């Protein structure tokens, strides 16, 4: 039996129970588009987003008005998007979500607008083709790729020099040797963590290992595949010998704090971290170099990257409203606006604006790496979704503590993958 009927009956019952008057919003000639938006307050994109919206509203005065509803706290925002959709309402006319194996279930909802018919011609060409393909699920394009990221590892050059490591390790053997030297010099070689819901920094390392062992399509293989077992062995070795004593159970704040404090030499994160004011204030900031994790298997030159934020819109039967939404999104994603966004935030976007960072050397390194034309592959969280990532995180602690073998570890994660 289909539920919508039952659900409606339950809800209708409640309405009768209360028999309260319903309020109907008054309609005027102007189309108001609500955008519950996380890029407000202290967010680095906030000033550019505010400018873009103001410019659009000025140009369309009396016809279309985009209204930003400021949403603090990213997790809570995701919760609100989820709750609204589950309660049968679009969270806004425009909103954003992180597209991964879990959130792709939203594509089954009728509340989201399908961009397929609108994303054509030059507008389509302005987007990164790979990102559009990644955002297309069973022929539907219910979100537009917007913010992207590559996830390399970072080296503190000053500490490397102090430890007597002359160059960025290009092979795993070199990496092990370099980390031994760092240890000998009294440093913790790398920032690792198995806390939070995704073991963020260590999940990035693991993704590199898995992809270089099994290729860019490795996530389609069963998790018990040798590529994953070997990756598990490698990450276990790092946890056992080459990280801080608090790594097991640590959250992203602890892992990042160690790098910021100069206690660890190698770190992993996306381009946004390069924009941190407190990182820029450190003495070692100019010495930071980013690089891919050395290949552990047969595949080389594949970058781990992800869609960080996709734009979604509320489906509507009203043609004028639909056109207004598209008009705004076209404006938002035009070249000058995207260049402005990239400039203030240092983030990376699925729309190529031709922007290259000038004053932040580290952010420039991200752009250079992304523009090398390497093949890209998703990270574990994006590829496998929330439940498998949680299992990965929890069992990573058990693996690092020696409570389970790499084979058992992979077997446990496999059970949580929903295919």
């Amino acid at each position: 039996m289909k539920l919508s009927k039952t659900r409606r009956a339950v809800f209708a019952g409640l309405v009768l129970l209360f028999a309260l008057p319903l309020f109907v919003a008054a309609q005027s000639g102007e189309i108001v588009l609500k955008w519950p938006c996380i890029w407000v307050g202290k967010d680095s994109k906030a000033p550019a987003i505010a400018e873009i919206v103001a410019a659009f509203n000025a140009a369309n005065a009396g016809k279309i008005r985009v209204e930003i509803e400021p949403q603090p706290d990213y997790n809570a925002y995701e919760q609100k998007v989820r709750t609204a959709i589950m309660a049968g309402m679009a969270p806004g006319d425009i909103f954003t979500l992180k597209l991964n194996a879990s959130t792709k279930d939203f594509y089954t909802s009728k509340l989201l607008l399908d961009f397929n018919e609108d994303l054509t011609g030059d507008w389509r060409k302005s987007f990164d083709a790979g990102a559009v393909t990644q955002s297309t699920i069973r022929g539907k394009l219910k979100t537009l790729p917007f913010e992207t990221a590559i996830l390399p590892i970072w080296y503190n050059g000053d500490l490397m020099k102090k430890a007597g490591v002359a160059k960025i390790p290009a092979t795993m053997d070199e990496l092990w040797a370099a980390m031994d030297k760092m240890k000998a010099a009294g440093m913790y070689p790398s920032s690792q963590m198995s806390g939070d819901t995704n073991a963020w920094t260590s999940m990035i390392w693991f993704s590199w290992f898995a992809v270089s062992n099994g290729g860019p399509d490795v996530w389609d293989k069963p998790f018990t595949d040798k590529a994953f077992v070997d990756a598990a062995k490698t990450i276990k070795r790092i946890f056992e010998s080459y990280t801080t004593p608090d790594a097991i159970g640590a959250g992203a704040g602890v892992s990042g704090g160690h790098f910021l404090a100069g206690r660890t030499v190698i770190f992993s994160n996306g381009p946004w971290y390069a924009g941190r004011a407190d990182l820029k204030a450190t003495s070692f900031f100019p010495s930071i170099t980013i690089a891919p994790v050395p290949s552990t298997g047969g595949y080389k030159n594949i970058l781990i990257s992800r869609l960080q934020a996709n734009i979604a819109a509320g489906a509507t039967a009203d043609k004028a409203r639909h056109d207004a939404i598209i008009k705004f999104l076209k404006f938002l994603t035009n070249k000058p606006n995207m260049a402005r966004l990239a400039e203030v935030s240092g983030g990376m976007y699925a729309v190529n604006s031709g922007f290259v960072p000038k004053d932040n050397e580290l952010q420039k390194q991200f752009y250079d790496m992304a523009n090398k034309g390497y093949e890209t592959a998703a990270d574990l969280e994006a590829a496998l979704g929330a439940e498998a990532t949680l299992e990965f995180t929890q069992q990573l602690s058990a693996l690092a503590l020696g409570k389970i073998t790499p084979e058992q570890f992979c077997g446990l994660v496999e059970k949580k993958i929903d295919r």
Partner: protein
Amino acid sequence: MTKKKGANHPWIIVYMLPLAVFFTAFFIFPLVFNVSTSMMKWKGGGEMTWNNFANYGKLFQDDTFLLSMKNNVIWALSQGFIQIPLATIVALILARNPRGWKLMRTIYFLPNVISTVAIAKVWTALYNPQFGVINGILKSLGLGGARNWLGDMSTALPAIILMTVIYIGYFMIIILASIMNIPKELYEAAEIDGATKMQQEFRITIPMIRGTLATAITLAMAYGMRHFETTYLMTGGGPAYSTSTMGIALYLKMDALRYGEASAAGIILILLGTLVIVAIRRALGKSDPMTEAAQ
């Protein structure tokens, strides 16, 4: 449920009406909704389809969920039987009005006012193996001091449970308010009979506040049963699920858009909680305010 057969006074219905309306809207209706969705496949805003008890079956086959259930029982018992005795001791002392008791009463309550986010941050830092104060103290006492309290599967749960004693102020004020309602004459009479203060506490105070203590234990166990936020912020349920609770499992199911399973987890939580609390109340026997009131 709000029809009161045999009610001999029409005012009873009037007085109960606001409760009936609000409780139905905010508890009964959502509960009915959740019981329905717990028997459905419902994820990601797509169609909802009945799958009967499949969600429950999945949860009961999941070792980590079973571990969460066990942890919740530990939480409920520790909240009821560590928090409440401690809160009672402090309340008994404060009720005798020692110097500065009003200020102390306010300070004891302070942690309940501070956002959990901040509390979790302090305690995560306190337990940190490298720069945490707890390891620092242990080291200076020569008692080791290299343990990763929250990163060790055997110490993480006790560490978080121990931390929650900072919240005793919550129950302390219930108990203190109840003690202060005891007529002073009872103590004066006991004093004349030559009873020591300790004897007065056991002969007068404790029996007089028995109903309140039972309520406090019930509340504390219920809070323990649905415990979620502090652990989620401190360990996320790790390492290796050793601190996971049903509340965390429920939250993470919602995070993964498995709403049907999340509803089932919520229903199991309520049923298990009722079971534990009823069992404890039975075991405590006479302390049950219901049986007391019936007499």
